[in-house]
């Protein structure tokens, strides 16, 4: 076992963990992207509630962002995984099933990440909407656009442009947060490294590789987000 170098581990040959780690990285990306998109949906709805909802909706949205920014993400993941399992088990018992039924860990992770980052998305979208100049919306009014047309052609594109830097930051947070989903037993990157570390007795090598893969993903997505920011502001005159 002593000769098993770091290159052997990432290799795709016999005894290599390359393909396992690669599919685990894909799982990390899948859970992070799904959670992120769920967060975007929640964020848009909560930002809308904060901006133009009634008093009740505003209170609910405020409570949501305050609570979710005050409790650890790990606790939310535990809550959805164990809470979900308890619920599924209770429902299973109603139908005569025996014993413990686990909640699907991918679903629990996605929902937990989505709800956690939704709170951050809310603030990103709210701030971006605030940055849209009132004149543009007024001009749309003056052209006789209805509410939906105004939203689709003016408000949404402009808000999105201002939101891109914030959206990028949230994505980087979500990517790192997805490592926490390993506690539910979902075989994403960190969980796969734990498995590998356990079966080869080389924890340092495996966690180093996992860290490097996270670093590569976050760097690459950073580059993509930077390109998106440039592309979305093409046609803007710069000082």
């Amino acid at each position, binding site marked *: 076992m002593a000769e098993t170098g770091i290159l052997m581990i990432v290799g795709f040959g016999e005894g290599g963990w390359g393909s396992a780690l690669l599919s685990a990285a894909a799982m990390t990306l899948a859970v992070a992207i799904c959670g992120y998109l769920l967060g975007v949906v929640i964020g848009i709805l909560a930002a809308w509630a904060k901006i133009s909802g009634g008093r009740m909706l505003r209170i609910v949205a405020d409570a949501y962002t305050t609570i979710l920014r005050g409790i*650890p993400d*790990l606790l939310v993941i*535990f809550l959805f995984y*164990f809470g979900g399992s308890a619920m599924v088990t209770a429902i299973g018992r109603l139908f005569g099933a025996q014993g413990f039924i686990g909640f699907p860990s991918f679903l629990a992770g996605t929902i937990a990440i989505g709800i956690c980052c939704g709170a951050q998305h809310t603030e990103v979208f709210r701030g971006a909407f605030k940055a849209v100049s009132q004149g543009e919306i007024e001009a749309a009014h003056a052209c006789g656009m209805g509410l939906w047309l105004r939203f689709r052609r003016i408000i949404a594109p402009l808000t999105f442009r201002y939101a891109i830097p914030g959206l990028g930051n949230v994505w980087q947070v979500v*990517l790192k947060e997805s490592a926490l989903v390993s506690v539910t037993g979902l075989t994403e990157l960190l969980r796969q*490294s734990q498995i590998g570390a356990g079966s080869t*007795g080389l*924890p340092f090598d495996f966690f180093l590789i996992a*860290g490097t893969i996270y670093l590569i993903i976050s760097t690459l997505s950073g580059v993509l987000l930077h390109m998106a920011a440039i592309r979305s502001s093409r046609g803007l005159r710069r000082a």
Partner: protein
Amino acid sequence: MDIQFLFDTFLELLGGVPLTLQLAISSVCAGFVLAMVLALFCASGIPFLDWFARLYFFVFRGTPLLVQLFLIYYGLSQFEAIRSSFLWPILREPYWCALIAFTMNTAAYAGSILYGGMLAVPYGQVEAARVCGMKRTIIFRRIVLPLALRQALPAYGNELISMVKATSLASIITLMEVTGTAARIVSESYRAIEVFVAAGVIYLMINFLLTRGIHMLEYQFSPRVPAQNNSRNIAVGGQL
């Protein structure tokens, strides 16, 4: 809803609060010192130090804290040299490993926040200090550092809150802080929702107090006419 169970759980979870606070406070304090060193490296203008600090920020901010924690707790034990060294009694303990990982992680975030604060100090202020004949160290101590800290305070406050939240990861390496205690109670009682909600309330309370404290500090440090002076002027005016 079982009020008695909730109440008992809450009391039991409060037993984990000291460890949570201890982890958060020690790592934030040690991390602040390390962050200051790294920010100074960045600002020093010496290429090697600057490069080192930037690499440190890149690596520790680009990887999940849990990976860093596992690297230190599980990873280092792989090496015979470490297991036989004098460091082993420390690196064997989950408490110290968590503390080291949290400290190094928060140092990266706080370091880049502090460096950002230093960059935001208006050059005119430094120039004025130079004109007054201050030396570099005095300029740093009297002008750059206070202004940078004030500038960095809101962002640093967010980092403090995320550190309190991050201490929950210590439960994964068997430490019995609030989240760890909650997970234990759940495994005994199978009542996940009540227990984790109670734990969430505790974290919310800690972070609420922390946010209040940061707001008070921000208010203290924000530039404005000192209130006492005003009242004294009015009193003096009244006497005249």
